[in-house]
């Protein structure tokens, strides 16, 4: 398998005192309050929390789909304004365009690039290989299983060589066997690409298995309750005492004891 040659550019993300409310029945409903988080280049940070704690909303702010918030989000010191190709995102649903083949879906991210076609073609090929989909370039999304479609979505988000990859419960809709398998794949891709990752998940086990740090959020309004450093070497053993200890700590924070 050929690695994607250039490593991702380094990215430092600073989320400074971010708050956001929706307006429901003409009354403001706070969804995020005073979120502060710094993510270092190459770091893998997970955000866990009960549904309604605003973790997906936070990701939408970082990717630039929603600009209506207070506070500041800085990428390498510059304020984020709208979406940008230095930030890739994978949603819980694969969101591949059903009318495009796998390779055409992945090539979408390179639309409008100045580089010569053969370079772009190679980038698409390399990313297909990276996620283990070689041989399925011409397949349509409906011909893929859920896990394979999500791999294609990961390749689509990586093809732009983003500095930071945002994962919004990317494995949440998959069965447990496929999920465990793709967790290892995500780990491999992250180590290979050295990309900064922020992943939203409700699976504590998954967060501990993959992350350098786990951000625990609590709902109504969404706040950061604690940030737990994992501090274990890869590959992590789920059955180990240390793994269970970190997991236990996070679960305690989640239940608010």
């Amino acid at each position, binding site marked *: 398998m050929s690695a994607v040659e250039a490593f991702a550019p380094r990215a430092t993300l600073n989320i400074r005192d971010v708050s956001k409310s929706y307006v429901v029945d003409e009354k403001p409903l706070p969804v995020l309050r005073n979120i502060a988080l710094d993510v270092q280049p190459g770091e893998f940070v997970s955000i866990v929390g009960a549904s309604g704690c605003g973790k997906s909303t936070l990701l939408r702010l970082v990717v630039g789909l929603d600009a209506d918030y207070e506070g500041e989000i800085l990428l390498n010191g510059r304020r984020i304004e709208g979406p940008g190709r230095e930030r890739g995102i994978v949603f819980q649903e694969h969101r591949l365009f059903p009318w495009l083949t796998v390779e055409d879906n992945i090539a979408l991210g390179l639309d409008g690039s100045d580089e010569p076609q053969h370079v772009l073609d190679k980038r698409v090929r390399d990313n297909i290989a990276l996620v283990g989909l070689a041989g399925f370039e011409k397949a349509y999304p409906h011909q893929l*299983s859920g896990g394979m479609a999500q791999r294609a979505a990961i390749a689509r988000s990586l093809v732009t060589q983003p500095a930071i990859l945002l994962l919004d419960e990317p494995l949440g809709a998959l069965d447990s066997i496929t999920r465990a398998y793709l967790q290892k794949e995500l780990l491999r891709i992250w180590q290979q690409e050295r990309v900064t990752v922020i992943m939203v998940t409700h699976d504590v086990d998954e967060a501990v298995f993959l992350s350098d740090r786990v951000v625990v959020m609590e709902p109504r309004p969404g706040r950061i309750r604690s940030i737990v450093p994992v501090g274990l070497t890869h590959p992590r053993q789920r059955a180990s005492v240390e793994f269970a200890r970190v997991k236990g700590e996070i679960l305690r924070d989640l239940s608010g004891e």
Partner: protein
Amino acid sequence: MSDAPSLRSARPSFNAGALGRGLVIPGLIVIAWTVVTHGGLVSSNLLVPIERIIALPFTDEAGVQLWPALLASIVRLIFGFAIGASAGIALGGLMGASRLADRALGPSFNALRQITLFAWIPLLTAWFGNGDMPKIIYVAMSAFFPAALNSYIGLRGISAQYFEVASVLRLSRLTRIRKLLLPGALPSIFVGLQIALITAWLGTVSSEYAMGNGRGLGGFLLEGRGQFRMDVVVLGVVVLALVGYLINVGCAKVFRRLLAWQGDNK
């Protein structure tokens, strides 16, 4: 890899079972028809034996006129449909893609849509006489509304999730149109075109019938009725239905091929 996809592509191109079931009712009608006409139940001037109908376009002096009439109707259908469907896709596409256009044109479009097409005939003949012009306009109008409505629905039906992907990937306007709006709306546009083709065909025959004058299947029916030739009338009706049926089958086949990405489960 545990989750290997099965690449389904083979699809039976011809479903003999479905065709067989579809032929049951027409078959029963033919049998009943034959029994009635040959059993002496009715006098033959009002209901003609089926074999005479089949022979009519090849042997009968009035029946032979079917061919030029059919040709004239199909030419009208093609012109009217081409004009009406393209205008419909253009307007529906504009209203589907632009909120501003939707707000500006939507109410008028929906009001006009409520008018029975037949009501336009007196106006059209008053403005354009009773030649080919008003007929083709009428056919175009019959195609216009279903084409416009379904193009609009098709664009509006594209999931907001895909638009988020488009903005995250910073797709250019042109790419958005080519890779998202157009293919996303295509299934619905095709449904619109199929309906438009059928309504345009019915519009063709009814405009010929209502505006008299000139060759066409509608005129053929009119003449048959005028001469009290029920066999000619029945022949005209059968051909009218047959063309409509072929349009339906042909559209379904072509569109299914063009929408291969939908697979079998659609």
